[in-house]
Every structure is written in C-alpha cells, then in structure tokens.
C-alpha cells in the first residue's frame, strides 16, 4: 500500500560521478591542500563499491567531466525526494553545468524533473537536509532564499525551513541524518546553534548524535532490506573520536569509508552520491 513518507532511508538507486582529473588543481575549496588524484579515485571506487556491492544499490555512474572539477559532488546538482528531482542551480557559477548530466541521468530513471528557472536562485544540494519528515535548507554562500523557496514549491508535501549557515560551506558540512529521526551533528558551536534552530523550527522531535568533529557528522544513512540501518561514516583513521561515537550505534550496520582526498576539497560522504528510491514511485 502506498504511503507518503514511508521508509526513510530506503533507497534503490544511487547516482555517482567520477572524479575529474582537474579536481586536484581546480576544484573549489576552502583551504589549500594538495590532493592526491589517484588516491582520491581509489577512495571513490571504494565508496561506490560499498553502495553497489555491499548495499546492493543500483548505481548509475556518470563519467567525470574534466571541465567540471567539482563534478564528483553530485549531491549538489539535484535534490531527489520521492519521485521528484529538483535540479539545482549551484551557487558556484563554475558548477552550474554539472547539473546537465545529472539531470539527464535522473530523467532516464523516470523521475519527475523540476528545473530552477529563476536565475536569481541558487541552491546546492549540500545545503538540503531531508529528515524524512521535512526539509531544512541552509542559507549559505551557495544557497539563497529563493533557491529554498523553489525547493519548497517543488516538494509541497513537506515543510521546508531555512536555517542560516555562516561558518561552513554547506548545511550538511556539519550534520546529516544518521537514522530515522536521528540527526548527526557536529559539536562545534555553530553546528549546535544550527541544531537548535532546526529543533525549534520543527514540529517533530529529533534525536541528536553529537559528533566531535563537524566534518565527521556528515554520514550517509540508508535503510537496506535485510540489513536494516546502515551508516557510512568517516574512518577511525580520519576521525578517531567521531568514529567512536558512531560505533555506539548498536543497531546500525557501520561502514567506515575514507575520503581523505576529496575531503581536502570540502568533500563529504553525502556529497558524492544522490540516493534514490524508485520503488516508492511505482507503488
């Protein structure tokens, strides 16, 4: 029986994209660090492998486009919820073309595609936190009010609340969903502040999982048949303290994934995939 908003974290498909060879030099970043391209690709392969083999998702792999150094971060290019995909208008002009291939791929999947026609709007998928019951949109350097409005207009079933994001690139740079009603949140003051706002804005109650390292608070949650709660989180090597916190999630299947290289260009675990649940649409 069909039901709205059922099965948070249930996904059947994942969209990923290769790492452009231009990434080490040209990808946007907030800090300067040398990126080891080959290692980055290796890590990315592992990431994709986890989705594909360990979790059994159907993974659509888009080829990298060297003219788009940030193209591996597909999350920013589209927001998919249910059977609808909102193709974003990334805040960074250099990234706007990334949406093209993503759009095509999503359309091929049969999703309803919604484009942003308003060229005053900017929206990065990394600023969109979907909790299963509602959206939070971080108003950041990459995402503006108008972009959030369009998101709200696209996903009418859900409340869309805006939260200011000042000290980070994206809203999800320091938070993510770690389970149904469970928000993983960084321990920094800005992160905690945002959490407060989200809690205030919400009609729903969320548990929080406070992660010592903000960046490590970005994890990928899935609900996979026969596996239950699955969380992809940063490795203990990267963030030992944070990893310990994740390890307290007893009922979760924990999969440490390293993204040391892409992290240097502000990459996070959620950034590198778009998760889709195609079953919800057909039933």
């Amino acid at each position, binding site marked *: *029986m*069909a*039901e*709205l*908003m059922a099965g948070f974290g249930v996904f059947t498909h994942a969209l990923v994209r290769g790492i452009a060879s231009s990434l080490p030099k040209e990808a946007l970043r907030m800090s300067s660090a040398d990126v080891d391209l080959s290692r980055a690709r290796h890590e990315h392969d592992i990431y994709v492998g986890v989705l594909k083999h360990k979790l059994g998702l159907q993974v659509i792999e888009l080829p990298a486009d060297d003219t788009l150094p940030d193209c591996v971060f597909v999350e920013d290019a589209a927001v998919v919820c*249910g*059977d*609808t995909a909102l193709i974003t208008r990334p805040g960074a002009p250099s990234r706007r073309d990334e949406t093209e291939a993503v759009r095509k791929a999503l359309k091929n999947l049969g999703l*309803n595609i919604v484009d942003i026609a308003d060229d005053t709007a900017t929206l990065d998928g990394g600023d969109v936190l979907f909790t299963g*019951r*509602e959206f939070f*949109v971080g108003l950041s350097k990459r995402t503006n*009010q108008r972009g*959030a*409005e369009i998101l*709200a*207009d696209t*996903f*009418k*079933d*859900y*409340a*869309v*609340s*805006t939260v200011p994001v000042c000290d980070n690139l994206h809203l999800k740079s320091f938070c993510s969903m770690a389970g149904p009603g469970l928000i993983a949140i960084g321990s920094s003051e800005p992160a905690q502040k945002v959490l*407060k706002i989200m809690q*205030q*804005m*919400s*009609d729903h109650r969320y548990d929080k999982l406070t992660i010592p390292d903000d960046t490590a608070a970005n994890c990928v949650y899935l609900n996979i048949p026969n596996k239950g709660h699955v969380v992809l989180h940063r490795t203990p090597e990267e963030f030992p303290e944070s990893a310990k916190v994740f390890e307290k999630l007893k009922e979760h299947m924990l999969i440490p994934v390293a993204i040391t290289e892409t992290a240097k260009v502000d990459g996070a675990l959620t950034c590198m995939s778009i998760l889709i649940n195609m079953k919800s*649409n057909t*039933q």
Partner: protein
Amino acid sequence: MTTETGLETEVKKELKQTEEEPAAPEQKTQVQDEAAQQQQVDPKQEHKGAEKTEERSNNKETLQSATAEQPSGEQNTDTPPSPKPAIPSAQTSPGVSKKGKEQAAGKGISRFLPPWLKKQKSQSQVEPKESLGREDPVKEEGYVQEKSEEEGRKIEVGGEDGVDKPAEDRRSLPQDSKADEKEEKHSINSAKTEPAKEETRKDTLEKDADLEEEEDKNGAGEEIQKMIKEEAKVQKPELKAEKSPEKPPKKMKTVVCKVMMLEGTEFPFEVEKRAKGQVLFNKVCENLNLLEKDYFGLTYRSNNDQKNWLDPAKEIKRQIRSSPWQFAFSVKFYPPDPSQLTEDITRYYLCLQLRQDIASGCLPCSFVTHALLGSYSLQAELGDYDPEEHRVDYISNFQFAPTQTKELEEKVIELHKTHRGLTPAQADNQFLENAKKLSMYGVDLHHAKDSEGVDIMLGVCASGLLVYKDKLRINRFAWPKILKVSYKRSNFYIKVRPGETEQFESMIGFKLPNHRAAKRLWKVCVEHHTFFRLASPEQPPKAKFLTLGSKFRYSGRTQAQTRQASTLIDRPAPYFKRTSSNRVSRSLDGAPVVSVTNHSLVDSLAAEINGKGDAADKDNAEEAGTPFRTQMELSPESKSKSLRIKGENIYVRHSNLMLEDLDKTQEEVLKHHASICELKRSFMESTPEPRPSQWEKRLATTLPPMTLGTSDEKQKAEMGEEVEVVIEETVIEEIRRTAKLKNSPDMTKSPAAAIPSGEGEEEKALKEQASKANTSSDSHSESEDEADYHPQLVKVAVDQIREESEENDEELGKESQVPMEHPAEGILLPPPPEVQGVADEEKQECKAHGEDEALSSPAEKKTEQEAEKTEELKVNGEVSRSVSEVNTQVIYCSEPPVVKTEIVTISDTFAGQKTDISTTEVPIVHTETKTITYEASQLDGSEDGEPGILMSAQTITAESLCTTTTTHITKSVKGGLSETRIEKRIVITGDADIDHDQALAQAIKEAKEQHPDMSVTRVVVHKETELTEEGED
C-alpha cells in the same frame, strides 16, 4: 478631550476573606431584590433609610428588569416562556431571610415566595463557593461567580441565544422611565454589587437557557454534565421567577440559515433570530449525525469576504451583522492524529474537509500525493476499481487537485486499482494517515507583514504558530514557547520565552492587514492553544484587576476533553452515505438523524462548566499556585531581571505559566491543569472586544449622564470629608462609554450601555455606603458584597476627560513622572519584603508592611483582598477609612482628592438604544486624584511616618512603538524589613482608547504575574481619550 483615569488598587487578601463572607449574604439579598424588582424589597434599603430605599428600589428595578428580561429572553428561545409569578417573591425572600430584615423590609415579598427556596439554594450555593474560592484555591465556585460576571458581560454583548436584544430593549425602557427618578433620587446602593449581581444572574440565566435548550437532550456521561445539571437545577427556578414578573416572552422570529455542508450541498436550518451560534451548530451536527463535533465549526463570510468562525457563545446575528445568513460547516481543529477519532463518520467529515482543502489548494501537496489521496477518495466512495463500471472518465467528476491534469487522473486510477479490498472506512483512514503528514495539514494561514514590512504568512496549528515567508518556514513558535498572544489594532504580538542563551523574553510583532484580521488571528490562536494544549478550556479572564481586554476565550471542549467524551460514545456506527463531494449531493434533509442531542447537551454543559468552573479553577490556581511558586523562586535578582524585561516593552508580560507548560506532554499538561490555566489567562490577552469590559461594567454602575451633575456636586460636598473620587471615576467611565457606544454599534446594544440609567443612584448609594462603611461595620458588609463580585478588579480610580497633566503629575508625582500628553498608567508594585515570609504585605505605597496579614498566605490572596478593598474604596470614594475587616487594615488617602467638575459635550447617544435618553451634555468630573493611597494598615500603623532606609534605587526605561515604560525599583529597609518597591510607569501612545485599557489591564496583569509575591498596591491610570473613537467591532 482628555480622559484621565486614576486607578488605585489595593488588595488585601485577608480583608477580602472576611469581607467576602459577609458580602455573600448581601449579594444574595440584592440579587433577590433585583429579581423581585417589582416587589422591591431591599434589606439594604432598610439600612439606609426610606428615601434611599426608594431610590434603590428604582435602581434595582431598572437593573432587575434588565437582568430579568435577558434571562427570560433566553428562555424564550429555548423553552417556551412560562411566566412564574411565584418566583419573584421567592427571590426577595432569600435575601431577607438571610439578613433577617425580611420582616422589616417585607414588602410582601414573602407572599410570593414559593420558588424562592430554590433560589436561595442556588444563591447560597454560589456564595459559599465564592467565599471558598477565594480562600480556597481549589474551589471553583467562587471563581465561577466572578466569572459569571464576566460571562454575563460577554453574554450581554454577544447576545445570548438570540434573546439578548429583546432583553436589552426591555432594559432600556425601564431605565428610561426611571431616569428621571434617578436623577432626583440617588440610591445609595453600592454600584458594584448591583452590576455584579446582574451579571451573575445573567450567567445563571445563560446556563439555564443552555441547559434548557439541551436538557431535552440526555446527558452523555460527563462529569461536567452532572455539575452543570446541578447548577441548572438551582438556577432554573430563579430564572423562571425572574422572567415571569416582567414581560411575557416574545415570540421569536426565526431565520433560515443556509449552511454549506462539506459534501457541497447547502442546507437550510431555521433558528430564532436571536439564537446563538451554538444553536445553529447543534442543529447542523444533529443533521450530520455527528457526535465528535468539537473539531468542527461554522464559518461565515464577513462583508470583506473574510472567513470568520461563528462563535457558538454569541448571537449569530451580532456576528454576521449585515452579512447573509450563510454559513459553512467546516473542520476547525484538525486532529493531528485522525486515527484517534472515535467514529468513522467523524473521519469521513474530516476527509471531506481535506478533499475540499486539497482541491482548493489550501492544502498544497505534490503530484504524487494528489494522486494517492485521490485514489483513496475513489476507493472510499466508489469501492473497488471496476474496469466495467469505471471507465476513463469515471473520475472526471472528482476533483483531486486545484489543477487536475489527465496525467493526474491516470495516476489516480492506477493507484485506485491497488486499493482493492479496502472498505470505505479503511480508505478514509489511509487518506487521513497520508494527509495528516502534509506540512500544511491543519495550518490556518493568515497574511501578515513582519516588522520590516515583508509579506509573510502566519500559520496557526495544533503545535503552535508558524511563520512563513513565501513557502518557506522561517520561524516557528511552539505553544510552550509562547508566553502571550495579544493584538492591538492591526498588530499581532507574541511574547516568546527566552531561549537558552537569551536573557529576556522577546516580543514579536506582526502587522496584519487590519484590526479585524489581527483579532481574528488572535482568536484563532487562543482557540487552538486551548483546544490542543490545555486539558480544559480556561475561563474567560476574571475581573482581577482591570480586565479590559477581550474576554474572548475558547468555550468549547478541548481535544483532551472531547477525546474523553468520545470514549463514552456508545452507539452503533451510524450509517452514512459517502458521496463524492462534487458529484452527488446527498439529501440530508430527509435523512433521519440519530439524536445527537445527548452529545450536544454534554457539549454545552461542558462549555458552560468551562466557562464557569474553569474560572474558579483558574482563580484558585492562581491564588494557590502562583504565589507559592513565585515566592519560592523569585529572588531579588530575578525580580530585577523581570523588571527590566518589563521595561523593554509594555506588552512584555511575565507569565511563569507557560514555563511550566514547556515541553510537557499532553498528559503532563493535564496533570498540571491548574498551572496551565493560569498560563492561559495571562497568555491570551487582547485588546478589548466590543463586549463589555470591566470598563463597561463600571459604566453600568455609573450614573446616567443626566445625573452626573448632581452627583458631582454631592461628591464635591462629600469630598471634603472623604474622597469621592471613586464615584467620579465611574462617571468618567461612563462618559467614555458613551463615546464608544456611539461609534460602535455593538456597544450600543451591549447591556452595559443600557444599564447606566440605574447607576447614578447607585453611585450615590455607593457614596453612602462608603460613608457608612467608614463608620459602621454593617455598611462594611455591604461593601464586601461588592467586593465579592469584583474581587480581583483593580479599582479604576478616575477617568477624567480632559487634558490634565496636572492630575497626572500629582498622581504620578509620587511615582515617576510620565509625560502627561500620553495616557499614563502607573502600577505600583510594592514588592514583598525580601524576607519571604513577609512578602505578602502589601505595603501600600510602600509604607507599611502588614504583619497582620498572614505571612504564609499567598500573595495573591492578599492581592485579591486588596482588590476588594480597593473596590470598596472606590465605592466609598477614595476614602481613607479604616476597614472594619477583621484584619483591621486601614486605608487612607494620602492626599484628599480634589474633584473638579467639568462639562464635556458629547455628541453621544449612548442612550441610543435606550431610545429615550439622549444626552448631549455630560458633566464630567475633573478630579485631581492626587494619590489615593490605600494602606494596609499594618498593625504597626506607624510605618507611615517612617520612610525607611533607601537601600537602592534604579530606574529602567524602555520604549517601544507606542509605549514607554519606566520602571523604578526601590529597595528600602523599614523597621528591619527590607522592602522592594517597584513602580512602573507606562505611557501608551495610541489612538484607540480601548487599547489603552487593554494595555492597562495587561500591565496590571503582567505586574501581578511578574511579581506574584508582590502585591499591587496602587494603580493609577491617566487617560486622555479622544471621544471620537471608532467602535471596535
């Protein structure tokens, strides 16, 4: 023109208690007397002398007629009016018996007495309760009476079941006839008592009426019901008695109301022209066979095409005004979890509403959701998909979305096929389970602008207030987070509890398109908060201090209550036919309806109970709970903090109530019912509605314009000795009233307006009483009666019309100086001694610490007492007199007020309704009310002389849009006791004086709430009012 009102309030609990008890008998007597109007036997008269008695009788007559008629009118509507001659006598008799003056008074009242016994019962019941209520927080009854007063007002304004108007008319007539008499004769009755009585009566009458209405309907097993019934029994006899003497019930004209049902068909319902909203609503629900009706309501379109909820407690005609008698039956409170509804039929109507909401676009949803919900609708109404029967166009008659595409229809059909086997009820359930998740489910949107003029939407829902900009939620205020909701003119305010990191509460204002919109939003907030957050509806604000704001409260059952009631529903699932909203109109007319009467009865009862009983609860709660809590919690620092908060904004009120509420689950809420009640009270203040406010009440007691002149003179004469300022106050009020009346149609009709005729006498009576009070304890008891009715009221000292900065200066002088141009309201909070035990003492004017007063007694009690005293004072005129109370508190005016008389020309027709009396010139008493100081004379009594040692002083000034608040905090040590005194001066600038009233009321409440352990010793109001104001509503 400028009106200044000086309010001086002193509340001494102890006094109250003592007074109350004695008062009760008087009240009874008075009431009875009134009831007996024609017979006119007043125990009081005897006291006061023949002349006075006569006068009084006149007054009473007028009053009686007014009150009596109202009830009768109501009865008429509901039940065939049966004149009961015997009753009047009965009424009078009880009073006599109590005082034992019957014989003397005995104007043959005893003869008619058959029913009086009944009356007595009722009254007696009430009285004891009252007394208890004050003393004992737990008992509701006491509160009830007070509330009843308020209710009475409301009723008057709102109009009871269609009977109000006639009643008013009648009133006016008698008044007119007696006006002349009044001029000449001034009864010495206490104005206060009389009005109070009237109100109470009305209340009772109301109840009776309701009961009668619904009596036929059997009572579903509600506890409330029982209570109500009891009340009804008691009160009914009274009503009947009252009715009978006056006029035979008129035949009510009936009107056909067209009600748009949720299925899209319009149904006619015939109701009496004066019927209240509840009558129509009950009929509709009956027709729909709906028991769980608390989630629903009727709407009407006002002239500006705005959707308004029909207030069940008010007369329909008064609400719709010139609009056609067309209504729509709708869901008012969307249950967050529809699965908890008891009956399928209820869910069905909810589904119908939601389908409507969805189709109209009010409830936005995605394509998929449209399709899914549409498919459940098909399943519910058509059953399983049948390829034979259901061809492509079978759904074209349905509307699933605001814009319905072929694609959508196909999707709907596709999904419909998957629902095979679902029963209609199951399909509805599925529909609701999905619809309830929609973010805009149950959100009532209102257009507004934020402080920067940006267009936003305010959404009221079960969980709180949502703020949207475009489609984004930009803020959310959960009910527990909201300390207060108010509106002023077209501004809507919420006071928000400070966040963890914030120190102060914040006041957030929104601009609505107009006053009505603001009020509408406020009401919706009040209703939603009450319905979803509270265990039981709060009673309308009681007359504690000044309650000038709207008395509106949600009067129905709360969700908790309706759920509980639903568990008692014991009937086979009613059969009902599901029809697609658009296609088939089902004929409801012919359909036999299962008698929903039981239910409705329960409802009404509950409502009544709420209104009355709750009030009591609140009272008690406040008294009991607040003081203690506050005492415990408030440290000097915290106080100062709160003060500062105050300073920031006049609207900032401190209510601890909400705090308690915070984060509590529904169950918890239930548990903490009492505290919540408190919350509510403070929580929902608004500007005065058209309903008679306390001011109006006062007006009622005041002299008719014509009499003013004389009274003034007398007052002056008396002034020398004692201060008569009080009287003047009343006068002023009246004037004000008049102004209002002119402008606002509602006001005109309000009973209060009609009443004034009697007042003049009353005032005099008051004076006399006052004088007597001074001298004799007996008189005291009388005054006490008065006190009972307005125990919590702050005494409005003086309304002066005219620009007088002088007065302000003088009054304010003691406190802080306020710009005279603006109406200033100063509230003196003598803080309780830092020693907690002592806290209670109202150091009136900081002078004395009442040691006698029970240290342990909650401050509130004391305040109440003080209030009573103040009232008494008022009655007396500001007289320094020693109160005969057991406690022996002495009230005196520090400075004898000087009364100046001024004549103001008012183009008023406050008498408009009254027809006969049209006054063009109203004498206005210009009073230099200097400070009237009430001191609780502490046993020490010598404290005055001792200024004490000033420990610290601080002044905080805050400005907001139209208010300037100056707070002075003074700490001093007297005789070993440290005393903190807070003076708060609020200057409100604005055009609507009603708002000022509200502000004052709020300020007082706030002050009280903020410093529960302190007592308000003085309230001074200076009001400058332009007489030409627009009537509200």
